[in-house]
């Protein structure tokens, strides 16, 4: 909680945490929290028995099939909300009723209007809201920001960011049915803009300050009800930088390769996130693993998910939230930040809709 009641509800030395939803990303949060000093995972909730069983195997003492029951029965300080977006508002409302701070998976909500209602509820209940925008915690993004702040390429008139993956439909070979909610605009709030673009908006404002959306276009490569590709033209007045953002859920992804590209084109050269990633993923992972093993013997804390930088970023984001809650401070990426990224995505979607409509209108031929 943001107030001085940070002794928290439990009165325990450890921060008592619940995880609502332990699908893919929820399990990452669960494993992160279980490895976090000063954090105790009391319970998780998930509607799927196989997810609950997986959480039990990970050492969670109590599981529920319904997050409302978990929030009613467990004495928590904070809850991770890793549910589909259409459940975020309800989960925040119930956490607020229980006086439990929340760390919400992105997007914070399906719309700014829904986010406003959630943040009003949180404000009235005095609970803190953090949002899982992880790009800021990735070492490559931190490296880019450091170079940019040091002025290593001078003025940056142009920047570009691209984030691509294969979204819910995946690539061959197919082993599991894809979830339906990410392709349902009512459930997810949108497509790639809310799934991937929202991370990019967050990291761009972190780098360049307040952004203006100037134009956008969206597309669907299949007959699906949400966009799976979006391109946005942005302007950062403070740094006088024009920026293009492209995000898409159409490209087959082969982990550990992750297609996130950020380039800052400056007067004297280019800052690229690729220069801040291991040239060979496996060699970098092996080095991280070795470092962690050595730390174990010197008594230092290991880097959690050390060999995998993108999972490590999730750990760092949740850790920073928990630390803020423990210290009674505002979460480093809070509800207003989450709402702001949502606002930029929403503006882009509106502009794209105008563009798409204009393209469909027949051209009037005059003599």
């Amino acid at each position, binding site marked *: 909680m943001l107030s001085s009641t940070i002794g928290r509800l439990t009165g325990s030395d450890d921060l008592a945490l619940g995880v609502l939803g332990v699908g893919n990303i929820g399990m*990452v949060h669960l494993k992160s929290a279980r490895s976090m000093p000063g954090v105790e995972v009391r319970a998780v909730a998930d509607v799927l028995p196989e997810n609950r069983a*997986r959480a039990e195997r990970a050492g969670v003492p109590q599981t529920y099939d319904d997050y409302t029951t978990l929030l009613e029965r467990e004495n928590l300080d904070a809850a991770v909300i890793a549910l589909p977006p259409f459940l975020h508002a309800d989960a925040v409302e119930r956490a607020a009723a229980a006086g439990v701070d929340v760390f919400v998976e992105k997007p914070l909500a399906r719309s700014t209007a829904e986010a406003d209602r959630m943040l009003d509820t949180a404000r009235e209940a005095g609970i803190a809201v953090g949002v899982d925008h992880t790009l800021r915690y990735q070492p490559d993004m931190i490296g880019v920001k450091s170079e940019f702040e040091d002025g290593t390429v001078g003025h940056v008139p142009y920047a570009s960011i691209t984030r691509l993956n294969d979204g819910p439909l995946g690539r061959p*070979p*197919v*082993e599991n049915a894809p979830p339906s909610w990410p392709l349902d605009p009512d459930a997810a709030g949108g497509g790639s803009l809310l799934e991937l673009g929202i991370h990019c908006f967050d990291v761009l404002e972190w780098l360049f300050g307040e952004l203006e959306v100037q134009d956008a276009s969206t597309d669907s*490569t299949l*007959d699906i009800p949400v966009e799976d590709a979006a391109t946005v033209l942005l302007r950062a007045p403070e740094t006088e930088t024009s920026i293009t953002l492209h995000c898409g859920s159409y490209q087959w992804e082969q982990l550990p390769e992750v297609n996130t590209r950020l380039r800052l084109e400056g007067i004297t050269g280019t800052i690229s996130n690729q220069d801040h990633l291991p040239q060979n993923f496996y060699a970098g992972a092996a080095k991280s693993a070795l470092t962690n093993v050595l730390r174990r013997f010197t008594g230092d804390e290991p*880097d*959690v998910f050390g060999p995998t930088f993108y999972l490590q970023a999730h750990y760092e984001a949740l850790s920073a939230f928990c630390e803020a809650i423990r210290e009674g401070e505002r979460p480093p990426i809070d509800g207003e930040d989450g709402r702001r990224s949502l606002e930029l995505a929403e503006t882009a979607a509106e502009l794209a809709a105008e563009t798409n409509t204009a393209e469909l209108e027949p051209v009037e031929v005059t003599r």
Partner: protein
Amino acid sequence: MDQPNIVRGALVDTDDHRGGWTPTLDARLSALESPVGEALGPVLESVADEPDRITIVPDAHYPFHPSTGMVTDPAVVGAVLDHLSWRTDADLAVAGVSTECMPFERTAEYLGYPDLCERTGADLVDLASDGDDGDTTRQVFPVDDRSVAVSVPERLREDTVLVLPSLRPTDEGAVAGGMRTLGRFADAVAEPAPTAVAATRAIEPASCLLDATTAYGDEPYAANALFAGPTPVVDALGASLFGTGFDDRAVALAPDATESVTGVEPGSGSTPQIRVEPVGRAATESTDDFEAQLDTLRARLEGGALPPSDDTHPAVSIAYRLYAAVGGDAVPPQLELRGGG
């Protein structure tokens, strides 16, 4: 009707195209109209005489983008529907089957089949055994000196069926082919290859049109070709393009894979020799050019396989878990052993 040992090969005119893929459905339909007619040729005339119903069975197993070659391009299906609707009053249908991984309704919707079918008034049907059209008939066929019992949808036995596979490998590295496309509709206890062969014998498709407009080897390749003929013979051609030949069990087990059809005896270690007759634009170009295109296609596909599974190799998972135990780190969920701790 198809001649028993000849595959007709047609090329799609790509002179007006930029890049390997044309995103607009209407443009693809337009480009495919002639080559589809040329490839199916006499088959179109003979099936058009069928009084009742003609069902098209494409490779629509999952909503992969058609530009990958991992599914039949819906535009090829649309072009076939167009040809049939011009020639016959028979009812037309496009059939698929739901699996545990994906309901056919979602696959069809994402690939744009509802709109495509609406253009020609064709029905879109899911022949999953628990569906409304799922009545099946059980038959027994001798395959590889064994009796293989298969249950296939009655509808596919009764209808005139055109099977339209894509040119891609399966998860197991075999050619997806027409027989395996039909095999997905079959219920049997036998292994997939004999099941596919028996299902094909039960359904007796009128012809097979192989969509090689985009093929998938280790990557997509815009081959801009179509091949039509008897289903096992077209599959034998597909297997020979991938370099698997008679190592593909379904091809080796097919009753049409005889020496008189394939030029070599199954089990001889040689690759089946399928005679491809160029038709349409492929015929008007020099034979050498068409042969060269086939050679290029073979070179692009030989040994081709699907991407590796997301599942990490067990050895890597074990090594990571050992590291995590020693280094005090967490194991990423993706590296957890299935069903294990």
